[in-house]
């Protein structure tokens, strides 16, 4: 027997079809939409993330859970909007200019969403100017840059510069096969994560420190 709330359990097991009924039951019991997100959904995704980190499950299973969570959020969205509740953090993410590799970046985006961040994905081959414009438009707390080619690492440097020049206080995390912690320091990024799971820890640690400019 699991000690999780049935809705949390449904998220963990990816039982999307059960979600609407369980969400309705929570609402009928007087729980607020925000509380459902914080106490039922996010803990479910946290368990899934933990299992994934321990190599007990794979991405497809994690995606099934993520879809179940999305289903719940869809139902709760009107209440959340009415109550002015937004995810605590917003992130902008993309693969830098000249680079089309996006699987790693997509996984990071998925993990960040699972940690209840609003994630704006700019896609691949994103120019420094486009990153800077997105930062000005969305005022995120976090920007994630991914690069897989040695020849697009310079574009990462240019992007960090363009974001800093935009003057919005934001934390920048970088990652991708050729990138290192030292490189992150060299180009003035705030953090480096070697994989998608640690990208969540890295982001949350930086965000807790507060935004720098």
């Amino acid at each position, binding site marked *: 027997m699991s000690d999780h709330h049935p809705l949390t359990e449904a998220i963990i097991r990816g039982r999307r079809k059960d979600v609407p009924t369980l969400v309705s039951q929570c609402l009928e019991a007087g729980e607020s939409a925000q509380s459902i997100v914080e106490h039922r959904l996010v803990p479910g995704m946290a368990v899934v993330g933990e299992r994934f980190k321990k*190599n*007990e499950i*794979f991405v497809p299973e994690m995606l099934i859970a993520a879809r179940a969570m999305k289903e719940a959020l869809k139902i709760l969205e009107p209440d959340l909007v009415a109550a002015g509740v937004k995810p605590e953090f917003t992130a902008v993410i993309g693969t830098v200019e000249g680079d089309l590799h996006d699987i790693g970046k*997509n996984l990071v985006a998925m993990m960040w969403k699972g940690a209840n961040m609003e994630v704006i994905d700019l896609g691949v081959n994103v120019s420094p100017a486009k990153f800077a414009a997105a930062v000005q438009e969305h005022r995120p707390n976090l920007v994630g840059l991914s690069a897989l080619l040695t020849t697009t690492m310079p574009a990462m440097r240019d992007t960090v510069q363009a974001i800093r020049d935009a003057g919005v206080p934001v934390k920048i995390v970088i990652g991708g096969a050729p990138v290192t912690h030292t490189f992150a320091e060299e180009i003035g990024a705030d953090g480096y994560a070697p994989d998608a799971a640690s990208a969540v820890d890295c982001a949350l640690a930086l965000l807790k420190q507060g935004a720098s400019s």
Partner: protein
Amino acid sequence: MTSTAPALRFNRLAIEDPRALIFGRAPHPLTTRDGLVIGGGTVYPEINFTLPSMGVNAATLPQVCDQYRQIIKGVLRRAAELEAPGVVVEFETLPPMTEHPAWGLEIVRILLDGMVAERDKSGLRSVLRLTPNDNREFERPPLMRRGRYWEAMLELFDSGAAAGAELLSIESVGGKELHDEALVNGDLAGSLFALCILGVRDMRFLWTHLHDIAEKHGVNCAGDTACGFGNTAMVLAEQRMIPRVFAAVVRAVTAVRSLVAYECGAVGPGKDCGYENPILKAITGFPMAMEGKTAACAHLSPMGNLAAACCDTWSNESVQNIKLLGGMAPTCFMEQLVYDCRLMNRAASEGPPAAETLQRWLVESDASLDPQAYIISPAASIELARAIVGADSHYHAGVAAARRAIDLLSSASAAGALRIADNEAGWLEQMADTLDELPQDEDTFIEEQLALADPEKFLPAEYEL
């Protein structure tokens, strides 16, 4: 909508005996202008290299060219010192070098000049494989049959072949716009659609054009690779993102897509990162490049030894031009390749029993430890090849390859010949169920998949759909 898929061109195997699916020997060897006979009894090193962290643009082009000058001189000198029997040099371009074909061509010339210089100095024979980038997906959704990326890519093939690049290859991406999603979702039906419907159609279109270019210049279409499909799966499995059994089954299916290059006139050596190449060698009899432990500089893999079992050229996939203690990295990797080739060639020189013993050791040292290694062992490759040539269409060939792969993995695991992780065992059954539910009729399958596909990701018309 009706499918226009013609039948497979190959309907029987060129190699039926796993022992004959062996390094250095292919039923249809390829002789180069310089006299290398690839697949004729000798395994040649195939060296690959790439730039260190630096931009590629008009301003940096002189430094970029210097890098390639230095690389080619260093690698060929070492090959000559170690008395390599010959060398295949692969120039896998970086995206700006295909986007601006003149830049790519300049480097082709630098490499060819370096090869001539070393031949004049030491007699070292060599051949250049040119692998432009498939930049078509810079447009999202990709334009597969027109547009500036398509034009520029063909221009580099054409000018490179005219300049003397004798082997033409590419890591083409047709179908990948849906396949990435299929991989992370563990969606075998989606993978089959991307590989055997979209991929096959794109390959046919692309390789028909490449064949015309090769004919015009008297060079050879060497082969393609399902890198963006099978190797993406492999890297994802290596990172524990997707089950290894799923990656292994996808690998089997990739052979159907890569086969189309040979149906359109390619003659090998197949491209190094196509780990599906053993299956293709069994079907076509053409020589194949392979990479394994020597490619750890580029990506990790679970078949470092086994991949050499039937190679005709032995490659390092790609290494940055950076300084290691032994020398510049490409030179160090050339040395490793030459020694690996020496060992295989030495074994072959003692006759079939010695060669077969080495082949068996290469296979047995990896096969039982990982389903992805097991599935491309000579015996499994021939089984998969047989399933493919027995099918009447590429769609059915993909389904047959997947089914045979699942059977092979299940029975090997049951017999204790293959280790499959506990959290992966259920996936075999799940994949078998997916195959059982697929429609027999290709048009129905296409309709079903089109209904599921994200219309923002790909343009059906680019695939005649």
